[in-house]
């Protein structure tokens, strides 16, 4: 799975779950400040990403270091080889 596919899946999952404007889904968008997600939303964000990518994320310590969409794309890219099903 290449990075463009990771971005596409991530954006679609977040757009549907949080009724976000797709125009706001840019790599520099801050999850809390720009997209308006709160602590409860972030619990659900992890779950929708787990479902979208068929991986387990809840125990990953790196989650606390993700602040922007770009951080999320990068994080998912780093674990793709070990976790994400190859297409």
């Amino acid at each position, binding site marked *: 799975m290449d990075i463009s596919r990771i971005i596409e899946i991530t954006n679609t999952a977040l757009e549907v*779950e*949080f*009724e976000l404007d797709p125009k706001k889904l840019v790599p520099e968008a801050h999850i809390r400040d720009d997209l308006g997600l709160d602590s*409860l*939303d972030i*619990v*659900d964000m*992890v*779950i929708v990403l*787990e479902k979208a990518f068929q991986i387990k994320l*809840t125990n990953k310590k790196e989650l606390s270091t993700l602040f922007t969409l770009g951080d999320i794309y990068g994080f998912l890219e780093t674990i793709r080889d070990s976790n994400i099903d190859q297409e």
Partner: protein
Amino acid sequence: MHNVVITGVGAISVLGTDHESIAHALYNASCGIIADETRRSNGFRSVLTGAIPNFDASLHLNRKQRKSMPEFAQQAYVALMQAISQAQLPEELIKSEDCGIIFSNDSTAASAFALAEEKRLQGENTSLGSGHIFKIMNSTVSMNIGAMLGVKGASWTVSSACSGGLLAVSQAVDAIRLGRQNVMLCGGAQELGPEGVCAFDGLSAFSVNLDPKTASRPFDKLRDGLVPSGGAAALVLESEEHAKKRGAHILGRILGTGYSADGQDLVVPSHQGIALAMKRALKDAHLQAKDITEINAHATSTIVGDISEAINIYSVFGDACPKVMTLKSLTGHEFWMSGASQLVYATLMAQRGFTAGTPTFSEGDEHTKNLPVLQKTLSQAPKRMLCNAAGFGGSNACVIVGYHE
């Protein structure tokens, strides 16, 4: 002590989802009960249920807001927004410490069923998502709506089975009377799905009448049980001076409240319990029984419950009983919502100058035959109405409201 007035009402009901549709159904005695055959395959003894027409919460609440609210809480929000709109309450007043919220709710079973299924599927708690915890709590209505509207005063839920709707209103009244709040948002909500009432159906308490339009027949000799129903009802209450100062239109006045407990049985109402609540409400209102012009009875259409209420009413009013409204003939039993909804329905009638009749009543049994049950809709508004509610455990409530006084 401050006088308390009603300045707004709203409901999402089996009679309709706005003031006009509900008033139209009340005036025309249009029943909101259906036969839902899926209940039979779902193990139900009775297929009867109230049904809410055309409610779409997504028109009012976004996905995130709905995530933490069961459907009845969403209905409570919309009902409350109707009441707030009618009262023309400014947003800054709702968000101030002068405003509180108290709602009645006593179950959220469908949410618990959904959580149990999700837990079975997911196993790990971290995969359950954020919404369940806020949906499975009895305080889900006051919790969600209070936070959403920014209420800074009282914020809690009353759980007392089917007396809860009136007791939530009564607590709101007390908060205003004592000067602790100037404005109170109050009411009751009741889940409508099969999960919340399946165990109740198991007690054989529901009607099995084949015609849903004649199944709920309070005080009638042919009644064979209640019909489960639900939705949400909401009121805006204010101190009279507060309402007048901001130029609000006063829809009615809370003249008195009373409560009591049977202290006797889980399900069988006593022959004295709700009479005490009525007497206390009369005393609180500085009224005598002869001053009451209408009784808005609890009257659920159960065989035993209606007999008990009739005996209680006789003991307070004797042979001079005013006309008796039995609105559950049209709605079914709205349980935790019912007392509040009866006040909302009566207020809508008062605004439009009529009192709804009970077409399913034809003749009482030996205990109810002398009750002057109002059969046909009257072109006359309720004036000084006493409203009853009674719940499991023998919890009783009574509120007296004055209209056009």
